[in-house]
C-alpha cells in the first residue's frame, strides 16, 4: 500500500520496465497485515512551525491541536466547550473571577508535571509584553493570575468575558511547558495523546502514540500518525486512490470530489467548516460608504451561482458573517436576495443610475479568483464595472488590505470560528463603524447566560445582514475524503483541526 502506483487501473501489457522494477519496491511493505495502527492524513498546505501559540496559520493547529497540545478547556466536534486540563471551574457571580480546578497526574511528553505554575506561565506568556500570540487580544481581559496551590488556578478579570472558556479551548491557548516553550516551533512538547516524532520539511510530520497519556477514558488506537502535505489537487487525488494517504479531511478542490463518488474504497463526507467567504468592502470609501450601494451590490449577487461556479455547488450560502455550525445561527440569505431589477433601482436611488467602477483586490487562491470573476460578471448586469487586481496572499494582501485598508473591495475566507466580532474591531479593514452592533457584542461578553448569548448573536447577525459591510457569500464545505474503514475523524469542523484521538481502523 506504500506504492505510488495505482495498480487497479494498470493493464499489465505494455507497462514499461520501470513499472515492473517498481513492483519490487511495493512488495516489501505488504508484510504488515495485522490490524492497522498507522494512519496518514493528507493536508494541502504545510504549516510553518508547529507552535500554535506563536503562529496564526490554521495548519499549525490542524497538526498539533488535541494531538500534541491540549488546553485548559477544549472544543468538541459539536463546537461545545468541554473540560480538559481543567477538570472543572467556578465563575463568580459578577463574572470577573474564574477558579479552575486543574487535573492532577498530567505529564508533558518530557516528563514534567502539569500544574498551576505551568498554566500561569502559559497565560503570562500569551498576554505579556513580549507575547507574539496571534490571539493575544483574548487574554488581555485577565488582570491577575493566582496559584493558591498546584491544583488551583484563579483568574481575576478586568471585565466579564463571556467567551473566555471558549477561547481557552483554541489552539492559541494550549498549555506549554516552560523549559520547552522556546523550541515548540520545531519540536513541540505537549500533554496530548501523541508525541511529536519528526518533520521532513516540505513533505510530512510524523507523530507517535503517547504511552503515558493521562486520559485513561479514551483508548488511543493509532500507534503512529503522519500528516503529509500535498499541494497539487491531482496529486492529492492520486495519493488517495493509491492509498498513500488514508484521509484528506479537507480535500482542496471541489471539482474533483465527484470523481470519488462510487469509489468502493473511499468515503466522501461533506461537512461544514468555519471558512466564511466574504467580499469585504471599504465602508469608509465612496461609494461603499453608502449603505444603499452595498445593499444594491448584495442584491446583484446570485449566491447560488457563486457557489456553483466557484466551488462546484458545494458550500452553503450565508446572509451574515456566521456559519450553520455556530451557536444561535440564523439563515439571513433572504434579507437581500438576488434581484437585478431591485438592485438597479437601489443603485439609481443612491445616485448611481449608470453604475460606477472600482477595483477588487483578489488573492490568488482559486476560490477568490473564481468568485471574483463571477462577481465581475454579476455586477456587469447592473452596470457596475469591477476590475480585478490579483493581490498576492498573504504578503501583499496583509500589507495593502488588512493593515493599510487601501482597497475598494476584496474577497477572503475568514477561517477563525465565531469571529463576528471583527466587525466591531477598530481599526479593521472593513472600516465598518456601528455603535449599536458593538453594543450587542459587548452584551455577549457581559452575559454568562448561554441562551441569552445565543439570542444576542442572532441580533448581531441581523444587524450585519441589513448593513452589508461585506457581501456575505458562502461557507466553504469540509470536503472529507477518506478510506471507508478509517473511523473517528470529525465530519464538521467547528474549529480548524484534525483530532486523531478517536481515529481507528475498522476490522
Amino acid at each position: 500500500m506504500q506504492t505510488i502506483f495505482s495498480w487497479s487501473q494498470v493493464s499489465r501489457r505494455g507497462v514499461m520496465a520501470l513499472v515492473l522494477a517498481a513492483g519490487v519496491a511495493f512488495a516489501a511493505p505488504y508484510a504488515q497485515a495485522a490490524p492497522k495502527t498507522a494512519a496518514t492524513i493528507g493536508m494541502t498546505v504545510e504549516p510553518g512551525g508547529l507552535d500554535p501559540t506563536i503562529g496564526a496559520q490554521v495548519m499549525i493547529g490542524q497538526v498539533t491541536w488535541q494531538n500534541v497540545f491540549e488546553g485548559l478547556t477544549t472544543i468538541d466536534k459539536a463546537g461545545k466547550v468541554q473540560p480538559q486540563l481543567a477538570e472543572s471551574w467556578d465563575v463568580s457571580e459578577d463574572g470577573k473571577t474564574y477558579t479552575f480546578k486543574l487535573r492532577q497526574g498530567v505529564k508533558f511528553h518530557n516528563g514534567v508535571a502539569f500544574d498551576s505554575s505551568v498554566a500561569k506561565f502559559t497565560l503570562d506568556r500569551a498576554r505579556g509584553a513580549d507575547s507574539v500570540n496571534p490571539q493575544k487580544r483574548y487574554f488581555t481581559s485577565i488582570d491577575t493570575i493566582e496559584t493558591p496551590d498546584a491544583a488551583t488556578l484563579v483568574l481575576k478579570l478586568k471585565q466579564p468575558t463571556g467567551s473566555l472558556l471558549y477561547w481557552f479551548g483554541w489552539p492559541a491557548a494550549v498549555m506549554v511547558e516552560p523549559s520547552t516553550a522556546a523550541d515548540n516551533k520545531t519540536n513541540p512538547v505537549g500533554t496530548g495523546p501523541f508525541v511529536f516524532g519528526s518533520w521532513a520539511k516540505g513533505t510530512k510530520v510524523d507523530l507517535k502514540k503517547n504511552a503515558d497519556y493521562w486520559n485513561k477514558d479514551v483508548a488511543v488506537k493509532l500507534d503512529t500518525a503522519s500528516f503529509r502535505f500535498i499541494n497539487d489537487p491531482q496529486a492529492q487525488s492520486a495519493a488517495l486512490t493509491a492509498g498513500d494517504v488514508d484521509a484528506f479531511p479537507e480535500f482542496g478542490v471541489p471539482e474533483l470530489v465527484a470523481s470519488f463518488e462510487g469509489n468502493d474504497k473511499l468515503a466522501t463526507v461533506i461537512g461544514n467548516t468555519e471558512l466564511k467567504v466574504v467580499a469585504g468592502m471599504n465602508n469608509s470609501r465612496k461609494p461603499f460608504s453608502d449603505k444603499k450601494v452595498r445593499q444594491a451590490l448584495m442584491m446583484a449577487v446570485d449566491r447560488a451561482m457563486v457557489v456553483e461556479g466557484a466551488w462546484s455547488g458545494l458550500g452553503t450560502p450565508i446572509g451574515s458573517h456566521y456559519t450553520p455550525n455556530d451557536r444561535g445561527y440564523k439563515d439571513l440569505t433572504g434579507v437581500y436576495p438576488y434581484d437585478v431589477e431591485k438592485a438597479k433601482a437601489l443603485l439609481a436611488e443612491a445616485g448611481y443610475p449608470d453604475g460606477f467602477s472600482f477595483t477588487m483586490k483578489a488573492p490568488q487562491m482559486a476560490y477568490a479568483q473564481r468568485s471574483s470573476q463571477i462577481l465581475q460578471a454579476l455586477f456587469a448586469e447592473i452596470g457596475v464595472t469591477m476590475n480585478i487586481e490579483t493581490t498576492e496572499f498573504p504578503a501583499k494582501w496583509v500589507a495593502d488590505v488588512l493593515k493599510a485598508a487601501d482597497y475598494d473591495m476584496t474577497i477572503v475566507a475568514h477561517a477563525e470560528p465565531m469571529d463576528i466580532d471583527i466587525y466591531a474591531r477598530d481599526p479593521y479593514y472593513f472600516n465598518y463603524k456601528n455603535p449599536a452592533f458593538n453594543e450587542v457584542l459587548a452584551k455577549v461578553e457581559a452575559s454568562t447566560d448561554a441562551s441569552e448569548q445565543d439570542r444576542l448573536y442572532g441580533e448581531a447577525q441581523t444587524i450585519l445582514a441589513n448593513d452589508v459591510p461585506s457581501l456575505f457569500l458562502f461557507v466553504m464545505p469540509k470536503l472529507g475524503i477518506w478510506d471507508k474503514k478509517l473511523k473517528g475523524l470529525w465530519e464538521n469542523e467547528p474549529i480548524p483541526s484534525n483530532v486523531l484521538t478517536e481515529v481507528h481502523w475498522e476490522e
Partner: protein
Amino acid sequence: MISILLRRIASLIVTLIVVSLLIFTVMNLLPGDPAAIMLGTSATPETLAALRTQMGLNEPLIVRYLAWLAGVVQGDLGQSYTYGVPVAGLIVERLAVTLPLALMAIVLSVGIAVPLGVAAARRHNGLFDHLAGAFSYISIAVPAFWVGLLLIIAFSTKLGWMPAGGFPGWNAGLLSGLAALLMPAVALALPQAGVLTRVARSAVLEVMGEDFVRTARAKGLSDRAAVWRHALPNALIPVVTMIGLQFTFLIAGAVLVENVFNLPGLGRLALQALSQRDIIVMQDVVLFFSALVIVMNFLVDLAYLVIDPRLRVAT
C-alpha cells in the same frame, strides 16, 4: 594563464557580491511584513512590534545585509522565519530533489539528443535528418510545464500508470523516488533535447567535413568508425558546453515543473518563501541559484580556454 584565471575569479566574486546586494535590496523592499504574515488577521499592533523585534526586523538594513553576508561567507545561511530551522539544512533537503531531477533531465536529454543528432548528421539532408529537424523545432517550442501537464493527463489521469505528482522521499526506496521524478525529468528534458540535437548534429557535420576525417575516410576508414572515433568525441564538447549555457533555462523549467508535479524542490521552496515573505530563505535560494549560474558560466569559459588556446590572449 594563471593571471587570467585569477582575474576571472576576482570578477566572479565581485559579480556575486553585487548580485547579493541586489537580491537583498529587492527582497527587503518588497511589500509585506513577514511578522504580520505569521500573526495572521487577529494580531494587535503590540504583538506585531514584539515579533518584529524578536525577528530582528527592526535593525537597520545595512546591518542586516552585512550580517547576512558575513554569515554566508562563514557558511551560516541564517534561520528560516517560517520553519524556524537553519536555511542551509532546508536547501540541502530540497536539493536532494532538485539535483537528481536536473541530472535526470540532463542525462535524458543527452541520451535523446546525441544519437538523434549523430544519426541526422550521417543522413545529411535525408528524410531522417528532416524528421530530426522537425523534432528539434517542436521540442524547443513546447513549454516544459505544458509537457508536464500532458504527461499527467496521459499517464496518471487516463492510464493511471504513474503518480500525478508528489515525492515519497528517498527513504521510501530509490525506485519509487526515481519513478516520482521520471515524468518531471522527461518534461524538463524535452526542450533541452531539441536544442542539444541541433548542436550535436551541426558539430558532427562540421567534424565530418574537416580535412583529417576526410583523409582518414579516403584511406579506407569506414563511415561508422569515422563517426565513432572522430565525430562523436568532438561533438560532445559543444554539447557539454551547451548544457552549461542552458543551465539557466533548466532551472527556470525546474521551478515551473516542480510546481506542476508538486515536488518539494528548491524551486517550490523559493515560491513558498516568496509568498510567506520568508526573506532569508528567498535571499539564500536566489543567491544559491545565481552562484550556480555564475560558476557554471565560469567553468564553460574555462573549458574554452583549455580547448582553444587562442582565447588566452584575447579579453
